[in-house]
């Protein structure tokens, strides 16, 4: 688990749920569907935000574990996807700084 990444993921998750952010505590075993009441359109929005935030592409056919069933799985999957991105050169501008951890 990466604490900095988890913090950012929680922020993005809370942006996409309808429940009161103060009413829920997200931990490694939080079930994103049942505990956060994510519906299909919220999941699509969540994935779109993650792609934008981390400059990654989420390919659903590549996902072999139930990442929405546990926050820990979700976080591990994203850490792996972010790792796959090529490093950005120091001269590059744009979102690269925010996308790297």
């Amino acid at each position: 688990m990466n604490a900095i990444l988890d913090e950012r993921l929680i922020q993005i998750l809370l942006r996409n749920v309808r429940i009161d952010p103060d009413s829920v505590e997200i931990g490694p075993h939080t079930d994103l569907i049942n505990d956060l009441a994510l519906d299909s359109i919220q999941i699509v929005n969540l994935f779109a935000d993650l792609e934008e935030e981390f400059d990654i592409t989420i390919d659903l056919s590549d996902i072999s574990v139930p990442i929405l069933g546990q926050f820990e799985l979700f976080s591990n999957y994203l850490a792996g996807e972010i790792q796959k991105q090529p490093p950005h050169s120091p001269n590059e501008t744009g979102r690269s700084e925010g996308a790297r951890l």
Partner: protein
Amino acid sequence: MILDEMLEKMALYGQREAMITDGESLSYESILEQYRLWTAILRDLGIRSGEVVMLEGDYSPAASGALLALLANGNVAIPLSPQAGHKREQFMSIAQANKYIAVTGTGYRMADRGPVEHPELLKDFLSAGGTGFILFTSGTTGVPKAILHDLSRFIGRYRSPRPALRTISFLLFDHIGGINTWFHTLFNGGTIICPSGRMPEEICALIERHRVELLPASPSFLNLLLMTGADQAYDLSSLKMITYGTEVMSDSTLERLHDRFPQVELRQTYGLSEMGILRAKSVHSGSAWLKIGGEGVETRIVNDVLHIRSQTAMIGYLNAPNPFDEEGWFNTQDVVLQDGEHIRIVGRKSEIINVGGRKVYPLEVEGVLLQMPEIRDVTVKGEANPLLGQVVTASVNVNVPLDARELKRRLTEFCRGKLEDFQIPVKVAVLEGELFSERYKKTR
């Protein structure tokens, strides 16, 4: 021949002002002089009846004279505006045009393409002695379709006298709306005011200077006009009517237009390159509900889609299958709402977004997003999505510097309560360039 009837009417209008171009006023007699001059030029160039001739030019006495001469000579003309010059070769190849004429500021250029083999439909049409013209669809989603119109069938609709106003030829020379402006105005003795550019400032200056009464435009242009406020520096009190067609108008643009021009009648038109411009009557000025009809025109709605049968329809496509059913009905692909005899067009069938089985009309979403002060213009469309089939995306021009992430956050907040969750754009892109084509039509 019906063109003779038009020429006779123009002769009767004589010294009446027919056209204003580059600040110069020209009478109907001047246009007829150009027609006679071009009749001689076509003879000298050896252009025979039954040949297919591309005519490149903008609204001008010379281009008008040349088009009249080609039609009187029994040709099939392909009007081409200079803005579409990059498609010249493609269009000529599709129609297998025999000749090309460009009307320039100082004269003309002509090219002979040598022996050609016309498409079957065109060959049959010419063998039967047909005279007409070919228009092209924009081809934004594929190869442009070549649409063959029979002249006598097409211009029959202009025989009944109608009021002719001082009209800006805003829609281009090779657009069905532009051709309609040209025939309608010249048949009825009105005045065509030719713009040299089509930016809001230029159009407003022209309206003030030449006391224009009718502005036929597209919703994209009218939206741009409102956004720039270009009208505020000019006296537009001569304007009696704004007609809009070519694409669907959002409620918010229509309302703002009505507020800005309360004295001007806002009239929606309905036309398709395949069917021509049909008679349409709005419920009231500023209403998006209208009744489509007119002599020889029938409508029906099948599964929310408008079908039309018209005596003035095209002969057919030169490079696509016959779109008419056995009874002559044409599926417009326009999805409509119906209230008694009135309809409201909500969008092209192909543009409707299906989010997990729920329909999203881009126009409805655009109408809400345009209410955001941060947004100058927006295009909404669908994008394939493995979870929901499609999701809604928005391409936006902004009024203030904003990155896509922040804009999406504000947009989502703004749309809550105004749109359902599945209608709110999932992806937002901030674009620098304009969201419409050179024809002021939204690029989707």
